[in-house]
């Protein structure tokens, strides 16, 4: 497991070129007469060039997707409301002067928060989030600001654990969803930033419109979000977003098929066939998460954020490191940034195998702990269990071994681009084995306890 580039659903050019800051075009061109730069106002970047012939089909496709969501009741009221807001606001955002686009999207996101949860929870969440953002901008040392944030988070955590009311039942998960991981990344960024971050960027990072439909939200990176804003032609970004929403809807419908028609309960496992069906379908329930993430990121694309893809054909992973790279890519990047790289850097004088092992082990231990932390903010319970610990422990060990093997592998000869029958068969076998192993581990993770999981296998094999 090492840092590598992220694939995007749209971009196929060199990854390092995708998040370049907006090109500093010559002032003469920026300030040129509007008639000489059709679709652009003075000072606007090329990526913001407006062209209604390109925009209207995208908008129509979005409207069609909204109709599909309504017809198939995709994810209920909050998503429909936020998608309707996005659909209505998109032309305004598109036509608005470039310098107003970020403030407009921030206002829209806050309005979405109020629309979904009502005025009182909206006000409380906004006030608390604003207070946290305010603390991060205090004119004191970074360590003091981080300490204050940590103390405030512990205080809120105590309140989350010991208070329960109609209001707090809404406020804690929503606030937790906004801050629990993004605040860590934001603090990490401002520690290394050369100058203070603009307030609009900081606020815009925490208030993200689709977040209010999906409390389980991808861990969007602060710097990536900022750099991706109008980093590419807006129509390309919006098309990518519509495609991501489309993919998300398809995955959510697939989830329903699996959940309602194919999945059996663990109690019904009584043969090898039913065991295989249960294990496979149980893993495919992850379609729901990948569907949510696709729609969430797709909605951000509509407003100019050309973000990387959240998942990359994870069912086709051919090894455990490959799997870790393909599933929940934002999480993997988050872990690499805040755990793997710092640990590996500290151990850079040690043997490579040791640094890799320690960093990988640290990533999986942190991932395990943070999944409990996430559960706490969203559900109010930590959810630590033996199957949970075993799942992360075994997966971490498999990735660790895989990382060592990858590190020792000799550099491959340049590919000729053609695959022979043998390499296709090997690849297929590796993919199948990875799928089977991950499905098996997933069933362990889903099981209420180890006894129930073992009991299922006994029933399947007549033990």
């Amino acid at each position, binding site marked *: 497991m090492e840092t590598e580039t992220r694939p995007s*659903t*749209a*971009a196929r*050019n060199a990854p390092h070129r995708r998040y370049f800051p907006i090109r500093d075009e010559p002032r003469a061109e920026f300030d040129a007469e509007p008639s000489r730069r059709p679709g652009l106002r003075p000072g606007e970047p090329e990526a913001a060039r407006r062209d209604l012939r390109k925009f209207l*089909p*995208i908008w129509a*496709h979005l409207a*069609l*997707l909204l*109709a*599909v969501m309504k*017809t*198939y*009741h*995709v994810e*209920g*009221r909050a*998503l429909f409301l936020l998608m309707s807001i996005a659909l209505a606001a998109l032309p305004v955002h598109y036509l608005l002067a470039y310098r107003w686009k970020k403030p407009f999207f921030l206002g829209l996101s806050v309005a979405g928060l109020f629309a*979904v*949860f009502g005025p009182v929870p909206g006000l409380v969440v906004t006030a608390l989030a604003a207070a946290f953002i305010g603390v991060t901008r205090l004119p004191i040392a970074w360590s003091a600001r981080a300490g204050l944030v940590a103390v405030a988070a512990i205080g809120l955590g105590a309140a989350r654990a010991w208070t329960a009311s109609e209001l707090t*039942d*809404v406020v804690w*998960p929503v606030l937790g969803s906004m801050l629990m991981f993004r605040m860590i990344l934001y603090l990490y960024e401002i520690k290394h930033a050369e100058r203070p971050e603009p307030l609009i960027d900081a606020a815009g990072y925490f208030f993200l419109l689709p977040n209010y*439909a*999906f*409390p*389980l939200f991808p861990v969007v990176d602060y710097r990536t979000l900022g750099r991706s804003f109008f980093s590419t*032609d807006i*129509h*390309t970004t919006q*098309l*990518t977003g*519509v*495609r991501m929403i*489309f993919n998300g809807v398809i995955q959510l*419908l697939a989830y*329903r098929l699996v959940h*309602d028609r194919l999945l*059996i*309960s*663990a*109690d*019904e496992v009584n043969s090898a066939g039913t065991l295989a069906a249960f294990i496979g379908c149980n893993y495919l*329930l*992850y379609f729901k*998460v990948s569907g*949510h993430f696709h729609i969430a990121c797709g909605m951000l694309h509509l407003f100019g954020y*050309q973000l990387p893809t959240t998942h990359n054909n994870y069912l086709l992973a051919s090894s455990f490191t490959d799997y870790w790279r393909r599933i929940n890519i934002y999480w993997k990047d988050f872990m690499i940034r805040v755990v793997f790289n710092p640990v590996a850097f500290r151990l850079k004088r040690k043997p490579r195998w040791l640094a890799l092992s320690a960093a990988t082990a640290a990533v999986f231990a942190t991932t395990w702990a943070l*999944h409990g932390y996430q*559960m706490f903010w*969203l*559900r109010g*319970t930590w*959810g630590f269990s033996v199957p*949970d610990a075993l799942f992360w422990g075994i997966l971490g060990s498999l990735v660790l071994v895989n990382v060592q093997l990858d590190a020792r592998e000799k550099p491959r000869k340049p590919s000729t681009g053609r695959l022979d029958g043998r390499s296709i068969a090997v690849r297929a076998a590796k993919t199948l084995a990875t799928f089977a192993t991950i499905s098996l581990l997933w069933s362990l993770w*889903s*099981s*209420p306890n180890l*006894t*129930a999981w073992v009991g299922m296998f006994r029933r399947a094999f007549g033990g």
Partner: protein
Amino acid sequence: MTRPPRSFPSLVFTAALLAWGVAPPGWSGRVREALRADHPNAIDVERMERGYYETLTDPGRRLDRVGRAKPEPPPTDFGPLTVPVPDVREYVLKANLSVPHRGATWATNARGMRDREYAVDKPEGVFRVALAGDSIGAGWGVEPDRGFEPTWERMLDRFAPAEVWNHAVPGLAPGQRWEHFTREGWTSRPDLVVFQGTPADFGWDDRKLRSLLPKGVGWDVASYKEGLAVADARPGGDEESYKTALRPHREAILGGVYRTVAADCRSRGVPSVWLLLPRVGKPTPPADRARLVGLARGAGFTRVVDLSDAFDGLDPKALAIGPDDFHPNAAGHALLADRLEESLRQEMTTRTKLRRPRDPGRPLRGDPR
């Protein structure tokens, strides 16, 4: 520059998906209904393993209901129709009620039954049936005289003077149903007891018990004693620990309830019928059906009547009280009553000692049609 993705195929697919979604039912098939079914009910969800992400996406569902101007009552919203009781039943139906609820009149008699009034003393020659059941038994969402119970009562009455006392209470798990019947039903001195359930019964008791046991409720209920012993559940645990303890033994818990029902009836010399009804739009998995029927047969009911196929092959839209609701409408209840009458005809003619209808030509008593 980044190359734009191709939009045409996904646009066409989106349009096709929309067209399929709005097509008439005959054109779309059952897969579309599965795709459109947003909310599997709590029991269906409960039957499945709740993995980390399944559990974690629940807050989104819960939060989704926040901020509605007028929240729609979910099918399990029995609050306005019930009064709480300090025992395992949790609540019973309010007596003497007549209010509009979910598109129908919800009316109860003086005994808190969704039924007409009856004299407690059994009139001479009347064959009295007592029904213990759930929301479908209580005729949830249909007019008081359109449930399968009053319809079946009218059918029986054509053969012999008959009464069917409806002790069904929406939302009660099988053990709670029997507890309710034990407290309220025997006073009517029934000649036959019908214990009604649906495929959702599987796992319902352990779901209820896990929240009741930490409060000290349910330990002394006869129908649960066997299941609790098998699960080795002891006082002093919390909801999570009971969930873990009971879940692997849900079959034993339900079996214990069934055995108690059958044994109680046998000890009083009253024949018992176990009746399995389907839910609209939710085909019963063959494995579930086989296990439930097996449990009922093993429990020793006098008769086992499995009507879980009654709605197979029929359009759920024509049979449900509303979209995304599994409760049958009047047409669905009429179908169930017909099937029930057909299934128990032999039983009833033997027990009522009548071979043919009293007057086949005369209209059924109180038949609104």
